[in-house]
């Protein structure tokens, strides 16, 4: 029973961070109908931001969120404006492949500059976990979990309460109608891509203290990210949250009750099953 509770808690905490990566991807897909294969690299950049912030300026990784999130927002907007904008009219396939090239480029420039060493961030307060009810919870993971929820709520408020946010949601639901209603689709696209990138970067910053980082970590995260967004329905923010937590829990329980070797396999089988039988996502919230 203790084992079950422990793995459930671990799964939910890790799943919340997976969800954050997924939200970034799904928001971009919702508006632009593109799958950004370089999304994992954006997470990687966030992780390295947290690392260098601590290594160079003794900045606590969680504090550094206020620096890296806006910066990644700008990076995202620039990426869209100067790299992607001309590609998207060329079609889904070209955009997909273009972002694959971008992913390779970013990962390998990072590999060249930062070398392939694996790095971890150690926090003085991260060594001993807290143990409420006998369940061990790592402090950095708990903080990251809290911040992930805060960011998600902030995002939700932005999307539902501001004009720009409503425009994004309208474009996501029906681009033609949104254009007719006078939404500046171009502006919405720039902001959305910035938003998706900022979310990826923020997720990277939050993940860094609980994980390790290396320049090609993005590939690993991207594959998980696909599973999440498909579970929840491509384009749906609540779906990505649910999908992330579900994947976290399934992986966690799978490792305990089946075998860690098949952990990833369980995720993929679930992924295929959902794709085939509920292509709109497990919870029917996607389109």
């Amino acid at each position, binding site marked *: 029973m203790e084992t079950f509770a422990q793995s459930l808690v*671990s799964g939910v905490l890790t799943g919340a961070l997976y969800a954050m990566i997924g939200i970034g991807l799904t928001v971009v897909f919702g508006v632009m109908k593109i799958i950004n294969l370089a999304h994992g690299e954006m997470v990687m950049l966030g992780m390295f931001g947290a690392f260098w912030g601590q290594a160079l300026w003794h900045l606590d990784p969680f504090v550094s969120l206020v620096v890296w999130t806006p910066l990644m927002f700008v990076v995202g907007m620039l990426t869209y404006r100067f790299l992607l904008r001309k590609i998207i009219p060329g079609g889904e396939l070209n955009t997909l492949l273009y972002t694959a090239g971008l992913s390779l480029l970013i990962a390998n420039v990072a590999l060249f500059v930062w070398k*392939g060493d694996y790095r971890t961030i*150690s926090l003085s307060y991260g060594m001993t976990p807290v143990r409420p009810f006998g369940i061990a919870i790592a402090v950095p993971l708990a903080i990251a979990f809290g911040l992930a929820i805060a960011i998600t709520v902030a995002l939700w408020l932005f999307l539902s309460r501001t004009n720009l946010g409503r425009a994004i949601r309208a474009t996501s639901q029906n681009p033609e109608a949104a254009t007719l209603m006078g939404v500046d689709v171009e502006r919405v696209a720039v902001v959305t891509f910035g938003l998706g990138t900022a979310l990826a970067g923020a997720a990277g910053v939050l993940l860094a203290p609980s994980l*390790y980082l290396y320049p090609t970590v993005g590939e690993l995260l991207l594959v998980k990210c696909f599973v999440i967004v498909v579970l929840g329905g491509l384009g749906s923010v609540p779906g990505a949250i649910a999908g992330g937590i579900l994947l976290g829990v399934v*992986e966690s329980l*799978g490792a*305990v009750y089946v*075998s*860690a070797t098949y952990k990833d396999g369980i995720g993929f089988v679930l992924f295929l099953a959902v794709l085939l039988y509920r292509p709109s996502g497990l919870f029917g919230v996607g389109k």
Partner: protein
Amino acid sequence: MKRLVLRSLAAIGVLAAATAMAQPIKIGAPQPMTGPDAPFGDKFKKAYGMAIEEINAAGGVNGRKLEIVIEDHQAKNQLAATVAEKLITQEKVLVMTGGRASGQAMEIASVSQRLKTPYLVDHPSADMITTKGFEWVFRNNPTGSIYPAAFQDFITNYPAAMPKSAAVVYDNTLFGKTIGGAAIKILKAKGVNVVADEAYPVNTLDFKPTMTKVKGTNPDYVLLVAVATTDAILLTRHAKEMGLTPRAFVGFGGGFGVADYATQLGPLAENVFSSAAWSGNPNDPKTKAFYDKFHAKYGIWPHEHEVEGYSAIYILADALKRAKLTGNLDADRDAIRKALLATDMVTVFGKVKFGNWTGPTGDPFTNQNVYSPEHSVMAQWKAGQLLNVWPKAFAETALTFPEPVKK
């Protein structure tokens, strides 16, 4: 484009043809210089460089200088075969070394065997490389199945060390499975109850579930095998976070022995045993002198990779000295192979003599260092330092066992 390739190929050909007897002796070494394994390629580059500098400064080999030609294989098997081919047929190296990971070394061994060029394996540890009867392939370092030899010796001979039960957690790579399997075999032979036998995929992000499961079996010993440093660090961190308190944590694999392990884990690393790869006997003054010299030159302390790379060059230099080189590539390569067969020397790594013998899992070895079983040691982390503790002959300090219970 084709013309360009042809022209550069022709240029290489002309250069190679000009290699007269006065030219340096070339040693080929495929290593991962870019890609995810690049840090390891760099370690070997430094080690080779230092050995070659020393040998050349002392007059070279029979008056000829040595030269190492490193080609990047990016940790890809297909590229490893390509660069091995290139080194042997284009660069016309006399002998090969390097490889870094086992998959790439398999390809290099296969190409070397076909093109009749001696290949001295300096680090890859898959048993298969020296169990396929390749007479052109030699190996100085111990194979994966030999790694747990010191652990076996420890549980047998240290007072009251025999485990009551053990959990074995290993990655599902070739490296992890070989060592995990060999350790389980040893434990079962001693009648130890293996309560958990867990494989995990490499680069796992979260070991807490696995460790929760392991904790439920209440093991007396926890054996962790990791090919990746990150896995080694996270395995330990999550095991401790989940509150595992065995009498001993024993880590197998390079990750448990690198400085990062201690800096990242801090107090969590204390008293963890590392049955990491052998990197020479630290009590041997010559090995110690090498450590100091390497540290003075590059500012980092050498570990197994550097010691293996450095020793490989000396083993090759020794064979080259004894081989009668005539300038005929095929004859010279065969002469070097024969000279390697007669190798009987001591390097900073330890004693070397290649022979055919039967390994711990019953595989027939060809040209595997016969002293390999002695090249296994258990070390322990003490205040951020990794010190050898077992067997006694190689011990640098007294060991702490069982792990003291906290509070």
